[in-house]
């Protein structure tokens, strides 16, 4: 993992080097000076690097050696579902029939693409228990936003758009939930979790009213706990005239076990880059399809895919639609991978995924319980939270524990989230890790807990084995350097 390669592209550049071979062209030159006034012609060329092909490869290989992916090691990042990303799906997404097609080419020349999208939609309907799917949202947060705009359009259609202005969000929710509500034009009302880490029915009853547009819920929630009162919660929100949004970030826990549709949700999104194995790419691209119940179909983003006999087409005329949320039809290439994954697993396979994911999380929790505070005792679903309060008293913070884990060859769990747990470590092992791997990780966390007692300075000094030591994030924010500056 460690490497001494530290140069920036701009530092290894030398005028005259090239790393490309453009197609030959015998077409006469047309001078830009003949086409536009001089002030629209670039005076100073952009200072892009000049490198040979091997230099470029070595640069990025050097960088990749300073990066940690799932194939590097265990990646227990809570709420991120860092499962194995099957290699075959990378091959498939690169077939020219998927990668080398233009989104605006005639529909009859893209029947295979439309069929794949149609089939994926059908599969996702089944998995979510919803009646219609749109593949357009590019990621979970965009799915949330699209879903909340559907709430808005629905309330407007019912003449309640101006009165139903509030979205309820539990205090354990992902940060995207309240942020998405704001960009959908809503006010946010935070619902306090109860002592068991769940949405309290009483608190919810007090919060709902004629101004409620809806409730956003992750189930299981970010503490890894299933909202056991979900049926009653749905009833309370619906009776108040609101709608229910399912944040699918944690859907890996319930595949084949239950569906958001059965639980009473009206709109859901799934993160195909979490539950359905597409690579996270260091932050994206993801894919965040949304699903809705029948009565919300007309509000879905357009275009929608239609099938007649064996012909697939895109339909654009949906006057009540919230409109378009993204270019074209979503992150198609990501959706190809997710469809390939679903076809590789089948229904039984997906159910096994959730069973193993939940088993692994509970196993890790059981192994770690003696060494770390576990604020919630119930069995968890696919992830769980620990609190580093015991270690904090010894002068070792959760951040230090996270950094020390890097030295053991693991990535760190999600830390300091959810916000309602002090010194939180949120651990999601996923189903694709072998028991030996889980044990090695538990052993490391136990060793760190012991070091926190015996040798806290060693833990707070971590990491020691990475390309850099602890980075100064405060100065980075105070005096931002966000582009390369010579010397």
């Amino acid at each position, binding site marked *: 993992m460690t490497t001494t390669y530290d140069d920036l592209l701009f530092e290894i550049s030398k005028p005259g080097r090239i790393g490309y071979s453009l197609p030959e*062209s015998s077409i006469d030159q047309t001078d830009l000076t003949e086409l536009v006034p001089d002030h629209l012609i670039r005076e100073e060329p952009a200072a892009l*690097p000049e490198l040979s092909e091997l230099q470029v490869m070595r640069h990025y290989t050097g960088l990749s050696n300073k990066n940690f992916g799932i194939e590097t090691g265990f990646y227990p990042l809570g709420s991120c579902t860092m499962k194995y990303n099957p290699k075959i799906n990378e091959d498939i997404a690169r077939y020219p029939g998927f990668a080398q097609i*233009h989104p*605006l080419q005639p529909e009859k020349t893209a029947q295979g693409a439309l069929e794949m999208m149609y089939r994926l939609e059908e599969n996702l309907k089944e998995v979510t228990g919803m009646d219609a799917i749109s593949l357009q949202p590019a990621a979970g947060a965009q799915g949330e936003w699209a879903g909340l705009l559907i709430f808005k359009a629905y309330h407007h259609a019912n003449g309640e758009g101006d009165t139903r202005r509030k979205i309820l969000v539990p205090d354990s929710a992902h940060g995207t939930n309240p942020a998405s509500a704001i960009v959908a034009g809503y006010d946010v009302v935070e619902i306090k979790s109860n002592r068991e880490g769940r949405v309290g029915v009483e608190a919810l009853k007090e919060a709902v009213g004629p101004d409620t547009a809806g409730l956003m819920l992750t189930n299981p929630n970010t503490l890894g706990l299933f909202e056991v009162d979900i049926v009653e919660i749905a009833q309370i929100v619906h009776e108040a005239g609101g709608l229910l949004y399912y944040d699918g970030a944690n859907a890996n826990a319930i595949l084949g076990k239950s569906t958001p549709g059965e639980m009473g949700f009206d709109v859901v999104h799934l993160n195909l880059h979490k539950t359905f194995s597409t690579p996270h790419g*260091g932050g994206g691209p993801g894919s965040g399809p949304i699903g809705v119940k029948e009565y919300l179909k007309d509000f879905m983003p357009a275009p929608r895919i239609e099938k007649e006999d064996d012909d697939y087409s895109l339909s654009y005329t949906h006057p009540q639609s919230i409109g378009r949320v993204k270019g074209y039809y979503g992150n198609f290439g990501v959706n190809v991978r997710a469809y390939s994954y679903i076809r590789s697993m*089948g229904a*039984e396979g997906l159910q096994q995924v959730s069973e193993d994911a939940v088993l692994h999380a509970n196993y890790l929790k059981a192994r770690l319980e003696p060494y770390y505070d576990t604020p919630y005792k119930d069995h968890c679903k696919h992830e769980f939270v620990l609190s580093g309060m015991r270690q904090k008293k010894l002068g070792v913070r959760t951040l230090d524990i996270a950094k020390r884990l890097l030295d053991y060859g693991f990535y760190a769990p999600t830390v300091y989230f959810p916000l309602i747990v002090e010194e939180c470590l949120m651990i999601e092992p996923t*189903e694709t890790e072998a028991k030996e791997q889980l044990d090695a990780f538990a052993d490391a966390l136990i060793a760190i807990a012991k070091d926190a007692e015996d040798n806290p300075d060693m833990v707070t000094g971590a990491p020691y084995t990475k390309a850099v030591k602890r980075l100064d994030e405060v100065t980075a924010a105070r005096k931002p350097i*966000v582009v390369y500056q010579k010397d």
Partner: protein
Amino acid sequence: MTKQHRYLPTTEQDRKDMLDTIGVSSIKELFSDIPESTRATKEKAIELEEALSEQSLTKHMKELASKNTTTETHAYFLGAGTYDHYSPSIVNHVLLRSEFMTAYTPYQPEASQGELQALFEFQTMMCELTGMDVANSSLYDGFTSLGEACNLATSATKKQDVLYSKALHPQAKEVIQTYAYGMEYSVKEVGLNGTATDLDALKSSITDETAAVIIQYPNFFGTIEDLKEIKGLLEDSKGVLIVMANPLALALLESPGKLGADIVVGDTQPFGLPMSYGGPHCGYFAVKKKYMRKVPSRIVGQTVDKDGKRGFVMTLQTREQHIRREKATSNMSSNQALTALGSSVFLAAVGKVGLQKMAQQNINHAHYVKKELENKGMTVISESNFFNEFVVKLKRPLNEVTNILLDNQIIGGYDVSNELNEENAMLLCVTEKRTREEMDKLVSILTVEGK
């Protein structure tokens, strides 16, 4: 179920051992918190087709892929926001490195230096091209970047009207209308003069309430708008100039920053990213320094570690949803980091001189086709101030011509008849990839069939 799946390492024995440690007797017990009425049962189990082996999967996916017409067999003269360009082989090789591909957002910078540095370099190159001070590390695509720019502009100016040129990509218009529906501001269209923005109309549309003016550069019809003149129209206004630019054209065109743009957005798909039926592409977002703390999504910054060694971190995170929740500048979490990396590799390989050459080839090819069409008596609606796209007027309905082209292994241009209020107007795109033979073939078919 006891059938072992290739992606799942846990054996029956493992399951027994783990259940023992947990202290429960069955997996079922771990799911007993799901209320019975919502639980899947045999009767309401999810139904999917049988799981496929790797061989059957590839067969099935190849069958689907084979139903699509691709650049392997056809010459594409279709652009309209997504382009068939040259991409060096090494782009894909770098993207396949799993340390990049399978990583998450770099929450632990010490173990994510490779990704962070690559994104820092991406930001730098986008600032170079656009002439701006600060760029983020990508957004979903060019159109959503534009939507975010509108949100920034209305929030920064506290004004409610966004003006956009009719020469903006039709899907970009749709996306900003959705953004406006969310944040409840208004968007208004300014008409055309030929294939460019009507500057008189724009001038009279700008009011005290104008938050932003959006201009595409080159615009949707390929025409190069005069940003300097447009910036001049905003002189007495608080409104900001948002430019949505094709970054390839910026190799030769003056940077929007120099011409007065406040926010520059667009898509780096022309930089090495496959068309992939519309995504994943890569939005970029660049601003003048004064808007730095209002930028949406991730920004990478340079810092030092405790030994004083240079390193990189995600910075200015108090803008972001995971810290600020409802006070964030945007709801974005995932971005398009991997495609941003792809475009960076592309730029590193093609480089300073190569990018200018490539852009020049686009101009040469597009203008060659335009001149050939005109020489053979066709009407070209666009004036000569275009980059690699222009509009030609046909005498027959477009779909008929498109079908004839298709029979000749050509994907024809995009129908802009509605946008231009002209019958049978086709937006043609000619990139560096088109050969003289392909161009001549297009011209000869259009001059026979489109006349």
